[in-house]
């Protein structure tokens, strides 16, 4: 089974960090990232840029707007795909991600969602 992990955080608070604070944060994350990759179960993990474009159908045609689909304080900052035997294993592996271990003050957190199989084939 594949599981999509959405890594949330408060973008505003991250934006207020000084350059030094931010690079210290990245340094600390690296150690967890190493562990995470070491499991061999992570199929993809990437951080996202903040620039967002939204596309919606309007009168049967795609309409493009800048800005997020839903305006919220907590936004998805990274995405990760884990391949695991079951949900508990996916949780165990996702728990190695920095967002499960640090960044409490930045409101970090992870949403784990099973990827429905066979829907787009």
């Amino acid at each position, binding site marked *: 089974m594949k599981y999509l992990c959405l890594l949330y955080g408060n973008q505003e608070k991250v934006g207020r960090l000084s350059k030094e604070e931010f690079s210290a944060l990245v340094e600390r994350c690296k150690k*967890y990232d190493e*562990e995470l990759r070491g499991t061999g179960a992570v199929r993809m993990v990437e951080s996202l840029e903040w620039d967002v474009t939204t596309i919606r159908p309007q009168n049967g045609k795609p309409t493009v707007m800048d800005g997020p689909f839903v305006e919220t304080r907590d936004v998805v900052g990274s995405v990760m795909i884990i391949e695991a035997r079951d*949900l*508990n294993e996916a949780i165990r592996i996702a728990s190695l991600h920095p967002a499960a271990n*640090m960044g409490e003050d930045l409101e970090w957190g992870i949403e784990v969602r*099973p990827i429905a199989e066979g829907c787009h084939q």
Partner: protein
Amino acid sequence: MKGSGELTTETTRGEVEQIYLAESRRVFASLVRLLGDFDLAEEALQEAFGAALEQWPRDGLPARPRAWLVSVGRFRGIDAQRRRRRLERAIAEEPPPARPWPPPAPDEIDEVEDPRLALLFACCRPELPRDAQVALTLREVCGLTTEEIGRAYLTKPSTIAQRIVRAKQKIRELGLKFEIPDRDELPARRELVLEVLYLVFNEGYAASRGSTYIRTDLSDEAIRLTRLLCELLPHPDCESLLALFLLQDARRAARTSSSGELILFSEQDRDLWDQTRLREGKMWLERALTGGAFGSITARAAIALVYGESAETGVIDWPQIIALHEYHVALDPQPVSRLARAIAILEGEGPKRAASLLDELAVEGSLEHFPPFHAARGELFRRLGRISEARSAYERAFALSQSEPERRLLERKLGELIS
């Protein structure tokens, strides 16, 4: 044993996977014992099999694949734990939890004693809620996935997952006890394990909810574990439980139609009963009786045996079944046992005494929300010709039931009342 160069290609990926299927739960149990933690053992198990996939096709199958896996898993687990601790210290500056470390080396114990048994006791800890004991047993001992447990109990996998995560957390707090309880503790702990096994079997035998009535996977798992328990830690109660499971499960094929409809005992095709299961159940019951057991589980296994024996004779020995029910109620007077007795009396003796027993239960009211109670009353009233009371009892059962096959059966019964 393969080891020489020319034979190396003979160990294929398929063979390694076969060994995984056969041995992974036992290797996992050994790793829980050695590493002292469920999650770490799961990670170590995976790493060990990853290493096997890489090395066995190249270097040949080791002489003792299971011992090899335990040993490699242990090393990988130790490594992972060391790294994590450094990580925790470097980042959170919290002192690591005090645990003997590194864990003991694998020894010959695992070869002699099956570690799955101790794992079963570790999962059925009295400090955990019952549903957590069940979920943990199914995942950690039987190897079911979170999603499979969710399907079996019609619960969202995320709910099951949280139950399992919390149970493991609780075990971590309390300290893992990976052992067969000592003589003082054993009777109570065994009782708890048997109750969990019974819950697993029963949900498989007569699912309380959902679209199918029988969930083979759950009853098979319960039988497999109870068999293991009987082999490794023989006790008459356990043997009685295995006998009960086998004798009931023997009728599995006859209990539902090909379209999933429920078939009542009196209408079952007795040729479909599994004679091997019946014989094996009888053998375990005899063993339990030789061991001096005649507890409430033994009584129920004996009832199942008398029903099973009717396959040969074509007649049900009702006096014996009723006598066994009386005995069972004397040992275990809870309402569900008394309902079972009343139903047997209704079938075997007729409505008169059954009516007064069911009335007693109705006055007490503790089975008010239990569909089979109202279904039994419906049947009683139908036989007494009190049709409108029969109808309202069946309707009540129908309203309470969450099992689709059971609801369809009740609908049929209601339809027959009108005609």
